[in-house]
């Protein structure tokens, strides 16, 4: 059989993902994460007298901590299974990616296991984050001036 004809059979019986539903769930869950972050920032600046701008750092640390804790307790993968990008795109997803890799490779030693593999998933986020920050920073400088 020709490859193209066979691929036609495969495509015919491969079910399509419900993108509308997945997108909606991710939108709502991601939005709720934003609301949670905003509430935390308000609380920190109101009760702890931290300036609003600096409260964002405390908020991020809190969310990262909660994400890592839930990963270690084994709940976060189930949540990701449901909410998909609603939890992967926010900072919790980054923390989760590092934490899960760290948990996985801890048994292969601190240096060759945990250290070498912790950024297995999140390494590319950092690399391309830095590169795109540089490119967009340069663009901004060129278009809008210093």
């Amino acid at each position, binding site marked *: 059989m020709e490859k193209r004809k066979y691929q036609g*059979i495969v495509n*015919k*019986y491969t079910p399509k993902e419900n993108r509308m539903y997945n997108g909606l769930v991710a939108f709502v869950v991601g939005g709720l994460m934003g609301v949670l972050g905003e509430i935390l920032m308000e609380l920190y600046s109101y009760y702890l007298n931290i300036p609003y701008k600096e409260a964002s750092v405390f908020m991020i640390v809190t969310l990262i901590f909660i994400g890592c804790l839930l990963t270690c307790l*084994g709940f976060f993968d189930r949540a990701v*299974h449901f909410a*998909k990008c609603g939890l992967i795109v926010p900072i919790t997803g980054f923390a989760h990616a590092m934490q*899960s890799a760290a948990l996985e490779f801890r048994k292969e030693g601190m240096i060759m296991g945990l250290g070498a593999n912790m950024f297995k998933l999140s390494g590319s986020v950092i690399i391309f984050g830095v590169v795109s920050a540089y490119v967009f920073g340069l663009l901004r400088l060129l278009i809008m001036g210093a």
Partner: protein
Amino acid sequence: MTNEYNNVYLNCVSTVSGPYEANGPFSKLYDKSYSDFYFGEKTFEIAESKLIDESVDILLNKIGKTRFQIDLHISGDLMNQLVSSNYAASRLGIPYLGIYSACASSVEGLIIGANMVEHKVVNNCICSVSSHNTAAEKQFRYPVEYGGPKPRYTTFTTTGGCSAYLTREKKGVRIDSSTIGTVTDMGIKDVYNMGGVMACACGDTIYKHLMNTKREVGYYDLILSGDLGIYGKKMLVEYMKTEYNIDLKNYDDAASMIFDIDKQPVYAGGSGPACLPLVAYSYVFDKMKKGELSRVLLVATGALMNTSMVNQKLSIPSIAHAISLEVI
């Protein structure tokens, strides 16, 4: 290539299953089941080699022999360098052959064993396979706790260890013939669509087996494919119809049977080298003993996937081997 055997019997089998299989429809038919993924060991890889170890131990107990009375142990699994089989073999101390053809390893082992027993190279032989869900996830996909989203047509690696005992002694089930498949590549690149990758290899092997043995599809009471999943199963039926004009009768797929697909979070069904033998050595053997099935064709399918080659944008080759079993 098809071989026929006159004097090889599958005397006895043993199965050890993991937690998801233990909640599936054949839970009561397994010799032993575990409720977690570690089985009291420190890592997933050691846990997987324990599956082979235990299934061989259970088998030796059943046949009443010690490991020194076994001439050959053939074993396969999914891990890099066959670590699970190798470590189990190092504890067992039986002369050992390690084999790999991904999820088709179970039948590959039986074919090698049957040929050696038939031609009196060895008097008896144990063929084992294992697979472990979280060990395979770690090696082929993401860290276990990451739980990255997957499409619903992907399959869920089964956790289990299975062993079979082959001799020329007339007991159990007769091995009638076997067909060694060829590697097929139809250009499918989606690592989650294993059913699509393997359906063509499965179809080709079934066709070659029927041609070489001059049999009709209806000759078999059951044709059981390895791990195509609920969507791959439909692809195979359509492929057989359009390519070879064969209507698959009495056909089922072990991947679609091993789990309760509606209730368990297993996507399109099971996969892994242990998927087919877990069903064949429990449910199918049970039916053959009761006389409800007399001729069964097991077709194990394997996607010969490698993460480096997939990242290099190459398509995934696949293979299928078939073995025909008959009630004495």
